[in-house]
């Protein structure tokens, strides 16, 4: 009797452990084939669909905003299929879950190439997952558009078939080039977490400061999983910097604790923070400044950019709310850029499309996507500052005396 | 003399083993009764079950204390009914002092005023404990621990005390002392006593009546004098 119970118990425990490992992604990837929203024209069913493979962390630690990336992709596909598809062929998308694992991403890429034989690919926005999988896609000559932001993603690898329609954190420094001069910044403090993307942008900032002769009076590193940052922040505040760069994965807590220690100046972020970062920081998010192609809105009337506004209207009509994170724009842009290439190529052949991509100049949600000079679609973009509950375009704000007014309000 | 504690066709099994195969015995008020037998005969299992320290699923048959069936009750409830137990291996609270151990014995009592007086009484009955009043339980000798366990059981004002192998691990001189104390409790305080014992000689010398258990069954019973003179018993248990 006891032996049986022991066996059952150990099987149970083993089952739970295995389930846990499975959750970490050691099983075969399973697809969620999402056919794009149906099109009206009935003659399409005779034509072979143009298949796009996509993967992202749908579950796991990085899964929070994947659903919105999907929505961006779906909106684009819906629009494309309603307007002739890819050279007459309807677009279909196959999705896989990387479960926030790089190994899983690598496996999925292989599957997309060898089993699903996709025509194009949209990999995960997580830079590490891209690095683990893009080689496979490139070697198979599959036109691939990434939306991860890590600076060295493309320049390190020099892939012929991989393009980017998202922010490259290296170029974000261009947003601060002239701004720092105009603001008269002499000293900067940096606090960063250890992820690749944060370390990369930290290095870029250090280079910019060196170039401009700006002194870095404090540099502290933190662990993203931690919750109390008083010690490193105390060091920063006592160094009395003109500006603080907060390159942490989750800026909410860092900002709150920084403000509490008495720092009221601008806090530079590496990209647009997420809605819940704003929620956590509350009023302390006043003074957040960041480079970005675009911002998210809580009220559609705050948006004064026409093409963005019409996209938001489409999104709202489809999902009943406004998007909370900018991954939706990245997803949309990637598919649209691909479509533009298909129009230029006049054919859906992989090589033709890849060749055509190098000629793409089109409107994206963040401005102009231009692949003629390099595989980076967005090479320059603006920055924003968050004040009075609104996003204000930085340089405009600066020239209008916003920064001086801000300093006086401290 | 009414039956205070009665076992009616009591059985106990666990894990497929029938440790106790159906025994009946009775202890009357004011008596000292013993249950002896070889190792593994089932005596300790019987005692532990009466004390409510075993799994109730294995129990069959009845254990009746003062007219109430107690075979499915857990230990603390049995203690609350006035049946204190002194468990095998003594089990005193090693990190508490002698005095605190006695206090714990009075855990269920509501009349806090009298507890102090009762402690004094215990120190009178067991002078050795008075000497070691502030020592930690773990620092006492085996014999002192056994006295403490018994004194602690007394603090509950029990009508009956059950003891499981009180001589276990004690030197012969100490064993004699312990059993002298047990007899004192019965004669002076009128406490009914039922004990299970490996050491058949001292058991039969201390109790009035006895039962002999063998492989889960009671094979013989009677007054201790008769049992001591019984040929079979002498051969098997008294080493003669």
């Amino acid at each position: 009797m006891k032996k049986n119970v022991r066996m059952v118990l150990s099987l149970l425990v083993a089952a739970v452990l295995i389930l846990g490992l499975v959750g970490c992604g050691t099983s075969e990837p399973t697809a969620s084939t999402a056919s794009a929203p149906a099109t009206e024209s009935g003659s399409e069913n005779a034509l072979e669909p143009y298949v796009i493979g996509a993967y992202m962390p749908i579950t796991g630690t990085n899964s929070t905003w994947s659903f919105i990336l999907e929505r961006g992709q779906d909106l684009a596909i819906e629009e494309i299929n309603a307007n002739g598809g890819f050279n007459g062929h309807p677009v279909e998308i196959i999705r896989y879950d990387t479960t926030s694992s790089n190994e899983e991403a690598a496996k999925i890429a292989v599957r997309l190439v060898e089993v699903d034989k996709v025509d194009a690919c949209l990999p995960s926005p997580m830079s590490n997952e891209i690095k683990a999988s893009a080689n496979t896609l490139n070697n198979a000559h599959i036109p691939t558009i990434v939306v991860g932001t890590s600076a060295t993603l493309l320049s390190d690898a020099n892939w012929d078939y991989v393009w980017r329609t998202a922010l490259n954190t290296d170029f974000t420094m261009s947003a601060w080039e002239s701004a720092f001069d105009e603001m008269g910044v002499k000293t900067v403090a940096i606090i960063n977490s250890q992820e690749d993307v944060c370390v990369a942008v930290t290095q870029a900032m250090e280079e910019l400061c060196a170039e401009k002769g700006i002194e870095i009076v404090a540099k502290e590193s933190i662990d993203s999983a931690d919750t109390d940052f008083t010690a490193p922040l105390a060091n920063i505040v006592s160094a009395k910097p003109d500006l603080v760069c907060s390159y942490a994965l989750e800026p909410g807590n860092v900002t709150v604790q920084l403000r509490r220690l008495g720092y009221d100046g601008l806090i530079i972020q590496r990209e647009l923070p997420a809605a819940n970062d704003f929620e956590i920081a509350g009023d302390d998010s006043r003074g957040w400044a960041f480079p970005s192609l675009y911002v998210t809105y809580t009220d559609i009337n705050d948006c004064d950019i026409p093409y963005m506004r019409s996209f938001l209207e489409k999104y709202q009509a489809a999902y009943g709310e406004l998007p909370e994170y900018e991954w939706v724009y990245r997803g949309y842009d990637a598919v649209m850029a691909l479509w533009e290439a298909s129009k230029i190529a006049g054919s859906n052949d992989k090589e033709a499309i890849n060749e055509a991509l190098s000629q793409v100049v089109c409107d994206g949600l963040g401005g102009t996507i231009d692949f003629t000079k390099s595989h980076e679609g967005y090479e320059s973009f603006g920055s924003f500052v968050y004040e009075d509950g609104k996003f204000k375009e930085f340089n405009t704000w600066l020239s209008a005396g916003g920064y001086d007014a801000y300093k006086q309000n401290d | 003399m009414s039956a205070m504690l009665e076992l009616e066709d009591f059985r106990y099994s666990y894990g497929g083993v029938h440790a106790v195969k159906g025994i009946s015995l009775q202890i009357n008020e004011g008596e000292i009764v013993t249950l002896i037998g070889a190792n593994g005969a089932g005596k300790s299992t019987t005692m532990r079950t009466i004390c409510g320290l075993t799994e109730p699923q294995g129990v069959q048959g009845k254990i009746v204390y003062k007219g109430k069936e107690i075979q499915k009750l857990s230990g603390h409830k049995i203690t609350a009914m006035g049946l204190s137990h002194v468990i095998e291996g003594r089990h005193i609270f090693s990190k508490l002092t002698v005095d605190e151990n006695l206090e714990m014995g009075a855990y269920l009592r509501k009349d806090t005023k009298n507890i102090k007086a009762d402690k004094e009484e215990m120190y009178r009955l067991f002078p050795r404990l008075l000497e070691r009043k502030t020592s930690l339980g773990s620092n006492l000798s085996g014999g002192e621990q056994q006295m403490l366990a018994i004194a602690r059981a007394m603090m509950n004002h029990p009508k009956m005390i059950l003891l499981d192998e009180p001589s276990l691990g004690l030197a012969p001189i100490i064993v004699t002392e312990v059993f002298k104390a047990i007899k004192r409790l019965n004669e002076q305080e009128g406490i009914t006593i039922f004990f299970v014992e490996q050491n058949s000689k001292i058991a039969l010398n201390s109790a009035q009546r006895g039962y002999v258990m063998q492989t889960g069954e009671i094979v013989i019973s009677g007054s201790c004098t008769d049992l001591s003179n019984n040929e079979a018993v002498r051969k098997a248990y008294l080493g003669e």
Partner: protein
Amino acid sequence: MLKFVTLFISATILGCTYGLISLSYSLIYKSSGMMAFVNPDLMTWGAFLGFTFYTLMGLPYPIAVLLTCVVMFCMGFAIQKGVVRNLIKRNVTPMYITLTMFAMGYILQNLSQLIFGSVPRKFDSIIPGLKIQLAGIQVQPEAIICVGVSLLIMALLQFFMNKTKLGTAMRAASMDPMAAESVGVDVSLISGLSWGLSTTVIAAAGILCGPIYSVSMVLGANLGAKAFAGAVLGGYGNMIGAIIGGLAMGFIETFVSGYISSDYKSLIAYIVLILFLFVKPTGIMNERAIQDV
């Protein structure tokens, strides 16, 4: 000087939080003799529940705290009765119990993610708009509440365990369950109560530090691991040791990262843990728990 004061205040807050968590570890060890690995996830639950009652449902803070404590107490009791007790009854090897505790922690974590979401949330201010100046540093009123209530809980717990009948029964039951049963202590009930108490303590830790560190899934895991080190430092299983160890941990971590290098902030906890496990496993208070294990 300002920096020192800042660090000191922050270390106190952190230390009190660790102290509460370490206490809950020790409570469970004292009452069931096992190293509980579910505590961090229970803490996350406590924080999220408090957040739900206070921020989402808008109940007054004291009611939110009370409700959270009640729910968590029942949860702890249920875990002891449903899971732990059954395991002990079946006489399984301690290894199985440990594994089951891990599994439970995993289940709790994922349930929490399902119910509360994986996104960090902001715990509303308890006294909005109030800013307190302490020796020139701006301090959140929630921080003062955290320290105050923590110390109160620690003191109450000490009193409870040593001076009340129930507390004494708990200590007796943990010292020797058979002996306790024999003197009339309902060990089964007491064990459930001990777990419930431990869960409540750690839920309190969760609610108290929620407003300070924001409520997230990793809250418990991150703090729990370091508090564990604190418990070992003080003497695992010892109540006073837990408090001392937790406070010490908070101070060591804050001051090391403030004056030496922030790179070592989390690392130092594990260094301390390993050091003590090898050199003095009984901790500051010389508690024999780990030697026996």
